[in-house]
């Protein structure tokens, strides 16, 4: 097994920050707001590795920093400090050292992001096929026949009726919009998918189908995934390993069944006992 992504000491502070910020925030202080300068430490000291083909779960309540982690990794937000190293076959890419154009290129070709809210990942008013084509064009794969064929194949693979590929996702159900988002994320065959609360707000039966789709894709495409969720059931089914976050920090990391059956951090114990 080999490492795809290495995250080292990643942090994100909203506000001007001061030299006491890290001292007075975090899980042991029960807050991520600095009482001296008012800055919010959304993420601190986050270090982990993701292997090729692995699904790594990230759980925690709202405000724990799990979505911040995703936003930093896909360049939606700048990191305050820390590194993310992406291992390609022949080189290691230091993600936050890339300039804006290279970041865009990296995101277009190496990274797929699926958000809880389809509005963030899709242009709801242009057709499902058009959404996928947009990503392919961004990655400079522009022949029309190719675009259309690829969009058709992707929608088919993710269970969206191909007959509806010319309709805008605004007309689709929530579950179907998530499928289009996943198809779009997969369009350029990225080695890494970031999934942020993708089943939240969906009916239970739709949730199960989306999880099923994710597992199937993971198996067929051997894509690595970071799955962020507040739902322990999602990590139980998808992730072999899981990180637990609270107040911006990773408080526990382990095999998923270990996190669920033998949690050691007080917060993980609380989280697990609340869910069962």
């Amino acid at each position, binding site marked *: 097994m080999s490492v795809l992504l290495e995250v080292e000491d990643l942090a994100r502070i909203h506000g001007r920050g001061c030299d006491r910020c890290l001292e007075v925030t975090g899980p042991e202080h029960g807050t991520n707001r600095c009482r001296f300068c008012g800055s919010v430490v959304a993420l601190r000291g986050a270090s982990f590795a993701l292997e090729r083909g692995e699904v790594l779960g990230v759980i925690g309540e709202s405000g724990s920093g799990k979505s911040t982690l995703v936003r930093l990794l896909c360049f939606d937000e700048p990191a305050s400090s820390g590194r993310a190293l992406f291992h390609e076959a022949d080189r290691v890419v230091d993600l936050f050292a890339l300039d804006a154009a290279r970041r865009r290129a990296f995101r277009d070709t190496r990274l797929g992001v699926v958000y809880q809210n389809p509005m963030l990942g899709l242009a709801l008013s242009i057709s499902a096929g058009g959404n996928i084509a947009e990503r392919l064009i961004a990655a400079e794969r522009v022949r029309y026949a190719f675009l259309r064929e690829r969009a058709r194949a992707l929608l088919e693979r993710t269970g969206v009726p191909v007959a509806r590929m010319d309709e805008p996702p605004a007309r689709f159900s929530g579950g179907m919009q998530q499928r289009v988002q996943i198809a779009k994320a997969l369009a350029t065959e990225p080695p890494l998918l970031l999934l942020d609360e993708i089943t939240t707000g969906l009916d239970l039966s739709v949730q199960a189908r989306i999880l099923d789709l994710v597992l199937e894709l993971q198996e067929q495409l051997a894509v690595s995934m970071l799955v962020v969720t507040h739902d322990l059931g999602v990590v139980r089914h998808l992730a072999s390993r899981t990180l637990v976050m609270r107040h911006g920090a990773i408080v526990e990391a382990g095999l998923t069944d270990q996190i669920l059956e033998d949690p050691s951090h007080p917060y993980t*114990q609380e989280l697990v006992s609340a869910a069962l």
Partner: protein
Amino acid sequence: MSGPRHVLEVEGLSKSFTIHARGRRVLALEGLSFTVQAGELVALLGPSGAGKSSVLKCIWRAYRPDAGTIRYQTAEGSVVDLARANDSDIVHLRTRELGFVTQFLHALPRLSALEVVARPLRRAGWAPEEARDRAALALAAVGLPSRLFDLPPSTFSGGERQRVNLARAFAVEPRLLLLDEPTASLDPASRDRVFGMIDDARRRGAAILAVFHDAEAIRRVADRTVTVHALVEVA
């Protein structure tokens, strides 16, 4: 090489749980040592609550042992201490070499019984067609009627579900099988089938560590027994 080949060598295994909300520490296992050889079934004995399942979970690493070593000899012949191996190595071993059957089947609600068994096979390296055939054979071997193969186990009876669970673990032919009351919900005919599968697994050299609820199962399939003693709680 001569002499017994230990697939598993547990030494001084201890496990406790700290329950932060109650400010309590519960001792589950202390200083347990035993071995399991290739082709051998060792049954764990002890009163209910003594920690028999905890032993299995420590080896599977669903529990993090406090102390002791769990030396496992891999298919390649190297020795890994499961108590200390990193999580990724455990994931890898679980996929290819270790099997765990509990009393409950955890699977995605919509997957068919056949897919529940075939998926881990594909993950372990079988080609899709082979995995499918092999899964069907495994389900037939546990006596699941073929009309149920395409249905999700969530709609099955307890005994049928347990048969899917057993088929899933045995189909991969793990080198080390951990069985936690695998026959508890089965009728006598299915139980005999499972005993037959256990015999087959032993013949191909699997090491098996098991907890059974009934003395007859132990008489029927165990080569040796190891007693787990109940411990008292620590404040």
